Structure formats: structure tokens, C-alpha cells
């Protein structure tokens, strides 16, 4: 795995502890996080308790910040009922690292299941390191190593041109999304989200889309056959009158 160190401004870990009553929650919240609340909402809506064997990822780009979440990371810990504890890791970066973050999401979409396990372990190690230091009041990591693109997407596939788009999460669409993320050109004033998740309904996808100006979502829901253009946010009365 080829990686690149990237400077971190904030991090959070959603996990649980082993004893009864120590349930799933954000056990670590450290550093300066401006996008955490938005990411937490996306997590609750579209990533938590979701079935299906696909990468659980989310990226939010807004203002001068980029948030990156990777979920369903199997730790080695077990809870009081001997069930495996899963971590969800959130990192926040300054916008200058937008490209690195989007490339990481693309790498995770393009890699084989076997390679995904290696990346998964890489992020689980960070999550567990943060969890074991959850008593620390400061951010214990200064940089994190993010994987860089080592495999090109398939350029023969139809490119996606989203406003607000949800696609069925098969290999072809994962590939198309990876291509989009690698070549993503962000306009500074707008907010963009990307989510890769399991069986999440169109209704829930729409709720995620309503919170952003532009988004691409990958879902395994049977409600999405290939791709569906989601509704744009309703225009304000003034904008409707003026006509833009």
C-alpha cells in the first residue's frame, strides 16, 4: 500500500466499550472539527446499521474543510455478549488536502476485496489508537497516512455528471464514482458530499441530498436499479420569482 502523510485537524471515533451500558457512541472527539455535526447526521441517516457488503465511506467538502469517514471497521474487541465491536473513524482536514481525501475514497472503491481488508486494517489501527487514548483531551495524531491512487478507473465507462445523484453500488458504478472523485473540481462556494453505503432507501438518500448542494451516493438498495437523479432542494420564493 502506497501512502502519503496528511496533516490532520480533527478526529472522532464511533465505537462501543465491552461492558453493558457502554453502548455505541462517539467515544473520541478531538481537535478542531467544523464538519463533524454534518457528518454525524449523514452517518445516522445513511451509514449506521446498514446491511450489504460494500465500502462504508463518506466525504463532505465545505468551505475550507474536508471531512472523511470510513465505517464498519472490525476491531479485535468484543462486547459483553461476545459480539465483535465495529469502529467508525472520522478525520477532518484543511481543504488543501481535498485531493488526497478524494483519492483515498477512490482507492477504496477501486480496490479488490482482498486489498480493501488491508486498507480496513490500516484505518482500524488509527481508530483503536484513538480509542485507547480517548481520555486524552488533545488530538493525539498530527498526521495520518492516506493511500494514494495506484490503479486507474475504467475510462471507457460513461462519466457521471451529478447535481444530486444516487447510483446502485455495483463494480461499474463504483468505478464511475472513483473516476469522478479523482477528477473532481470543487467550486469553493458550494458544498459537496459523497457517500458509499449498503442497503439505504431512496428516501434516506434524498434526506442526505437535501443537506448539500451537490452529491453522489452509492447504495445497494433494490429501489435503485441503475441510477436515480434526486430532487434538488426547493428554491426559495425570491429565487422562484426572479427565475434562477
Amino acid at each position, binding site marked *: 500500500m502506497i501512502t502519503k502523510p496528511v496533516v490532520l485537524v480533527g478526529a472522532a471515533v464511533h465505537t462501543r466499550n465491552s461492558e453493558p*451500558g457502554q453502548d455505541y457512541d462517539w467515544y473520541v472527539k478531538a481537535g478542531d472539527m467544523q464538519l463533524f455535526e454534518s457528518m454525524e447526521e449523514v452517518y445516522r441517516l445513511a451509514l*449506521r*446499521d446498514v446491511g450489504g457488503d460494500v465500502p462504508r465511506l463518506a466525504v463532505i467538502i465545505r468551505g475550507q474543510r474536508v471531512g472523511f469517514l470510513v465505517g464498519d471497521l472490525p476491531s479485535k474487541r468484543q462486547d459483553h455478549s*461476545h459480539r465483535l465491536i465495529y469502529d467508525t473513524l472520522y478525520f477532518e482536514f484543511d481543504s488543501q488536502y481535498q485531493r488526497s481525501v478524494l483519492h483515498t475514497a477512490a482507492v477504496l472503491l477501486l480496490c479488490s476485496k482482498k486489498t480493501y481488508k488491508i486498507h480496513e486494517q490500516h484505518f482500524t489501527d488509527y481508530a483503536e489508537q484513538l480509542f485507547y487514548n480517548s481520555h486524552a483531551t488533545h488530538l493525539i495524531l498530527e498526521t495520518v497516512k492516506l493511500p494514494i491512487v495506484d490503479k486507474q478507473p475504467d475510462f471507457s465507462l460513461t462519466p457521471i455528471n451529478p447535481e444530486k445523484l444516487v447510483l446502485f453500488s455495483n463494480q461499474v458504478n463504483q468505478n464511475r464514482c472513483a473516476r469522478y472523485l479523482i477528477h473532481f473540481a470543487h467550486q469553493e462556494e458550494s458544498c459537496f458530499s459523497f457517500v458509499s453505503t449498503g442497503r439505504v432507501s431512496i428516501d434516506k438518500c434524498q434526506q442526505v441530498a437535501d443537506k448539500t448542494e451537490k452529491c453522489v451516493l452509492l447504495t445497494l438498495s433494490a429501489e435503485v436499479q441503475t441510477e436515480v437523479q434526486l430532487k434538488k432542494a426547493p428554491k426559495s420564493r425570491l429565487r422562484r420569482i426572479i427565475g434562477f
Partner: protein
Amino acid sequence: MLNRFVMIMVGLDGVGKTTLLSTMYHELSRIDNPAGFEVAASEDTHRDLHDAYKKLSTILAQPTFTPTWPLLKGTAGIVERQFEILFKGKKELELVLCDIAGGLVRAKEGNPDFDELKNKLEEAIVIMNVIDGSVLVEGDELLSIQKNDPAQIYKLLLPILRQGKNYLILFVITKCEAWLKNEKTRKQLETAFETQYEMILKLIEGLDNVVGVLIPVKTMGCVEFTRIDSKGEEKEVIFVRKPNLRFKPVDIEQPQRYALAFALVQHNQHRSQWNKFMRWFWNEDVAFQKALTEFAEGRSRSFKIYGNLSLIEVTES
């Protein structure tokens, strides 16, 4: 007309809510239903529950019971499972079944998931309290609070049940295979339940709009309680996989049968006048009632009922 109904599972962490749900769905989907009612899960719900059932079967297919639960994953929030109830192939009503993370039962005001839980409880007409049977009979007070916490369930139910709407409360006891072997041990389980849940039962008995049913189930049929181990101050309930027994759930479809019959009765009673007239005109009301009676007859009569029994009675006339 009530054409969407919500059912919610409550119970503490690790009592087996998700396991119960996946086995319940599997058993219910296997039932031949000549009455004309069918439960159809949305495709996403079907796949999720099917996957969970497959994982459970894999664990139990192993020759001896080892702690292989890592294959299963705890719930972290509130999961909505979508179903449709069909009558003679036509959609009659929607069923939303909410499975929750056990910890939410004890969450604090202001926690967004706890607020959502309260909203779902207000919407629900069937509340399924899943209870750990081994703790009920063998656990001390501390373990009972830790694993079942009847006082907290009472606190959650109290404002809801007093709203006046009709409610069915199902007390589903899991992990109780060891006490379902004969009448004497069954009685022991029932007495333990009635002692520890006295406050909730008194509440139900005092209200006209609520009925409760005690349903002990064998979720797996092949895993049994053996002892409680102490690890310092912590106690752990130990179960063993009985090598001579097969994975064979018993009475697992009964909670759903009670729930669906109740929902269908409520649905039928709240039809609009126009709808009632059209159904009378086309003679559909008789066919529906006959089918409902047949479906309700599939409910086992051996369970103890608390509160207003008439709320779950179904007659053909």
C-alpha cells in the same frame, strides 16, 4: 383508516432482539397461509434479515457452542424494517418494525436517538419487550437491572399507554430454552416474570386500552443456560450449545401472529364509512373477517394474557 402501523422492539443490549427478528421473519415466511394473508418484506428488509439468519445458522451449525458471536453485530441506533400485509395478493396495510440499540432504553433526554425512540413509541400500536429469560430466573437484582431493567421499561411505557389509543404489549422471553421443558419449570419462568414485572402488569391491568401477552420462545432450541460466572464484580451468563439438539426455533412466529392479528383488527375497525359500504356491497367484509378469524386461530392459546382480553379477540361475526 389506519393503513400503516408501527411495531417496536424494546429491550436492553444483548437480550436478542435482532436475532429474534431474523428468526421470526424466517419462520413466518415459511408458514402456509390458506387464510389469505401474507407478510411481504421489502426487498432490502428481506435481504438484511436473510443475511442475519444465514449468519446465525452458520454459527449454530458448528458442532459445539463456542463464543462465535463475533459474526453478529450489535445495533447502534434505530433500524426500520419495512413490510406489507397483503390480503389475497392485494396490499392491505404497511408494517414498520423498529429494532433498536438496547442502550437507547436508558439513554438520556437530548440524545437524538432517544428522542426518535420516544417518537416511535408514540407512533407504535404494538410494543414488543424482549426479555432475557435466564436472567429472569437465575439472575440477582443487579443482573436483572443490567440485562432487563423492568423499572426503566415501565418509565418508558407509562406516558405512552395513558394516551388512550389501543395497545398490544408482547413480553417475549428469549434465552429460556432450559425452562420450557415441563410445566413446573414453565411456571417458574412465569412466576419470575410476574414478580419482576409487577409494576408494568399492574399498569396494564388498570387500563382498558391495553392488553399484554407473555410469550416465551425458543429462538434457537439448541442453546441452553448452564450457569452464571463471576468475573470480579461482573457476572456473565454462560450458555452451551447442546450437541444432541438441532437449531429449531419454537413458537417464534407467535409474537408476529399476535401483532398482525391485532393490527388487522385495528385496521378493520377504523375503516371509513365509504370503504365499509363498498366492502359490504361487494361482500368483501365477510371474506376479510373470515380470513382474519382463520389467521387469528393460528395463535397459540397457551400464553398468559394480562389486561383487556377483548382487544385481541377475533370472531367471525
